[in-house]
């Protein structure tokens, strides 16, 4: 819609007096926007449709990717991450550079860190919010003006005007900026995004105990020569006693198998290479970054039904088995090529498969070797991961 037409519509709806409109905080307005399906092209999709509060602001079911757009038939490209806990502490995207090559070699060149999204391409939540609002396979607004026009018809338009100025909606650019700001404030400040109500939180506070199986699972999770999970999914209290968030925000290439459930993958030439595209464009030349995705939090992971950036797995047990058997039983995960060999890391172009982590436990074993965990171990790690589920979180629906 042309800007002038949008302004005309907005004027019709939004120059009415504001009498009686309650003044809400920016965050409270953001909450209304977050849950408002009328802001989408379909009229049926809100931020909360994918980031369901009942599911730790993650997906409500096990769909690998969700469908959006005007007719809810446009498939997305990646699985929905949880918004709980991590937003305030996500560092700006950066690739720290140690000046001394010797120290880079000794300490290991640090992988990139931070930014919002699986590929970290947004440094602020307000810039991130633009993507789902405008993406044709998500909420599907064709431009900011169209979004503001829809907002002008929303039942809380008067509160929006009360919060940001009586004439805010006649200036779509300003109104759009306030929409993004309000969403950001809600996401950063609403207590529902930081409840710390899991059994593990109670355990850290000395208010609960873990069962022997859960404790054993925690030990396996921590063991640097075994699961080594805690090297990325940090699980120790902070120096100030704050509870861990189970991510270090670093990027990692795990070699997750290609997922045929993603329609885009029907094109054999299409690869989601994370940091180096196609959604992110500024690191395309950094071939060492291709295939790297940001480490997600594991809080509430046991309530999810879809895992990894491409939603390849739908069962947490299978995820753990993948970690410990990726290299010992590669034929279980990857297809076989024409010569009969297993095509490991098949969701990356051949030339980029060397970026996949093969140096950190448990990803260092060879085909035929024993995995670091047996089935009983996996039971215990699962039992531990279930302690990370907040009290209010429902399990996502299985497919």
């Amino acid at each position, binding site marked *: 819609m042309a800007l002038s037409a949008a302004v005309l519509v907005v004027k019709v709806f939004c120059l009415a007096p504001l009498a009686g409109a309650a003044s809400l905080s920016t965050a409270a307005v953001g909450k209304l926007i977050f849950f408002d399906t009328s802001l989408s092209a379909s009229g049926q999709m809100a931020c909360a449709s994918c980031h369901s509060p009942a599911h730790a602001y993650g997906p409500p079911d096990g769909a690998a990717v969700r469908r959006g757009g005007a007719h809810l038939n446009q498939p997305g490209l990646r699985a929905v991450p949880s918004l709980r806990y991590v937003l305030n502490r996500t560092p700006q995207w950066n690739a720290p*550079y140690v*000046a001394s090559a010797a120290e880079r*070699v000794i300490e290991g060149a640090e992988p990139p860190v931070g930014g919002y999204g699986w590929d970290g391409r947004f440094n602020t939540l307000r810039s991130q919010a633009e993507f789902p609002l405008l993406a044709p396979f998500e909420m599907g607004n064709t431009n900011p003006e169209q979004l503001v026009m829809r907002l002008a018809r929303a039942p809380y338009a008067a509160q929006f005007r009360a919060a940001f100025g009586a004439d805010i909606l006649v200036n779509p650019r300003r109104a759009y900026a306030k929409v993004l700001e309000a969403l950001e404030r809600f996401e950063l400040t609403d207590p529902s995004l930081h409840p710390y109500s899991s059994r593990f939180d109670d355990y850290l506070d000395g208010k609960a105990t873990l069962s022997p199986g859960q404790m054993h699972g925690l030990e396996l999770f921590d063991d640097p020569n075994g699961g080594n999970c805690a090297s990325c999914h940090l699980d120790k209290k902070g120096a100030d006693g704050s509870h861990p968030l189970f991510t270090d925000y670093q990027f990692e290439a795990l070699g997750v198998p290609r997922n045929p459930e993603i329609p885009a993958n029907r094109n054999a030439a299409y690869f989601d290479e994370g940091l180096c595209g196609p959604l992110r464009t500024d690191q395309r030349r950094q071939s060492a970054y291709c295939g790297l995705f940001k480490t997600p939090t594991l809080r509430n992971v046991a309530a999810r039904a879809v895992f990894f950036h491409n939603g390849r797995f739908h069962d947490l047990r299978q995820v753990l088995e993948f970690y410990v058997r990726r290299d010992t039983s590669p034929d279980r995960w990857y297809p076989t090529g024409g010569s009969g060999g297993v095509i490991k890391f098949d969701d990356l172009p051949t030339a980029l498969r060397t970026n996949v982590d093969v140096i950190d436990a448990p990803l260092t074993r060879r085909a035929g070797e024993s995995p670091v965990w047996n089935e009983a171990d996996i039971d215990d790690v699962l039992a531990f991961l279930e302690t990370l589920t907040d009290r209010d979180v429902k399990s996502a629906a299985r497919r």
Partner: protein
Amino acid sequence: MVRSRHWFLGLAAVAILSASGTSPGRHVTNALSTSAARVRHVFVIILENKNYSDTFGSSPQDPYLRQTLVPMGALLTQYYGTGHVSLDNYIALISGQAPTRDTADDCLPGLVGSVGNFNDVVQTGTAALGQVIATGGCVYGNRIKTLVDQMSAAGLSWKGYMEDMGNDPMRESPTCGHPQIGIGTDHTNAAEAPSVAVPQGDAYATRHNPFVYFHSIIDAPSCREHVVNLNELPADLAGAAATPNLVFITPNLCNDGHDGAGTGAPNTLCADGRPGGLTSADAFLQAWVPRILGSPAYRKDGLLIITFDESNYTQSVHTASTGQRIVDITFPGETCCHQQPGPNLSGVRPATTTVLNSPQLVENLVIQGFGGDRIGAVLLSPFIVPGSTSDTQYNHYSLLRSLEDIFHLSHLGYAADDPRHGYTLDTVGEDQNIFEHPSHPH
């Protein structure tokens, strides 16, 4: 340049007193022969990982240090680090202790040491000059004393000012910040970029804060008053009485030149997006040195020392007959001042460590000696001859000895002479090339 002359007044007694390395705060009467004897406030700024030939030669990144500060003070052209790769230098500077197998490698787990991480030193004995014999480890036991233990015992004040420490209180405490001993990884090894919760980011590095590697310091509640964030310094500079006798400043990982190439080129930046390298180090000096030089304590009786922990490396690349690309990162590891390796470096220095061996690439870390190579230092003081230069050889042990002499303290570890082996060190307070004659009016 003629080497400085030495007057060993009382120093024989000092050597005897300090041979055990465990005699903190013994007040000795070693009178300095230059106007350095009048120094009562010492400010130390430690930067990271630069060659003398870059810092004071070819680099275009540090014009303030080279063109403003050097002419204002004294340039020590033959100042050497004592080791590679960082932490052992800081520890040498405040304790006179040579490296353990772990402190020689920044207490990284699993490289050469047997203990790694932020774990206690496992001491098995004591060698000459109080050197700890250890199988490994990082945090020295309570019996091992440091310069600041000596100062406290002698009634002298000190503070370590650590830039960024506690910016993220989840990462480390804002006072006396260090990882829990024996618990997991030191997460301060890499800088943390700014976030909503930590708007300034946090580029504090434990391994650049020597004080927290000694139980004699961290076990005392007073550590919280002594090892603080750099943001406390302005208030402490306001009056001479508030300024500690020793002000030890560690910039964050960007401002000390550790991170970033200094050029501003993409993908060579600090975590917070600044250029780092000598560029950010120079900007740090430009921001802080005038505040120090303008402080009442400095104007009255101050000495500012700016140096680096260690020098840098050379890199060579060639292709082997196997087709592998061979990258050798080489530290000469040169020493000065008759430096001793200490009792723990057998098999560690010198050494070549292959840290990567893939079908395409081999990376070797070649450390040819056990020293820290030539870094240089700049000293500023009302008692220093502006624009002076000294070619006398110094290292971190001799700087420790120099500070101990200024504060009339005994000599710890390798800061002490060992007459049995002809081991003696020069001290800056005796360097007549840079300090005024004591009778010179201030």
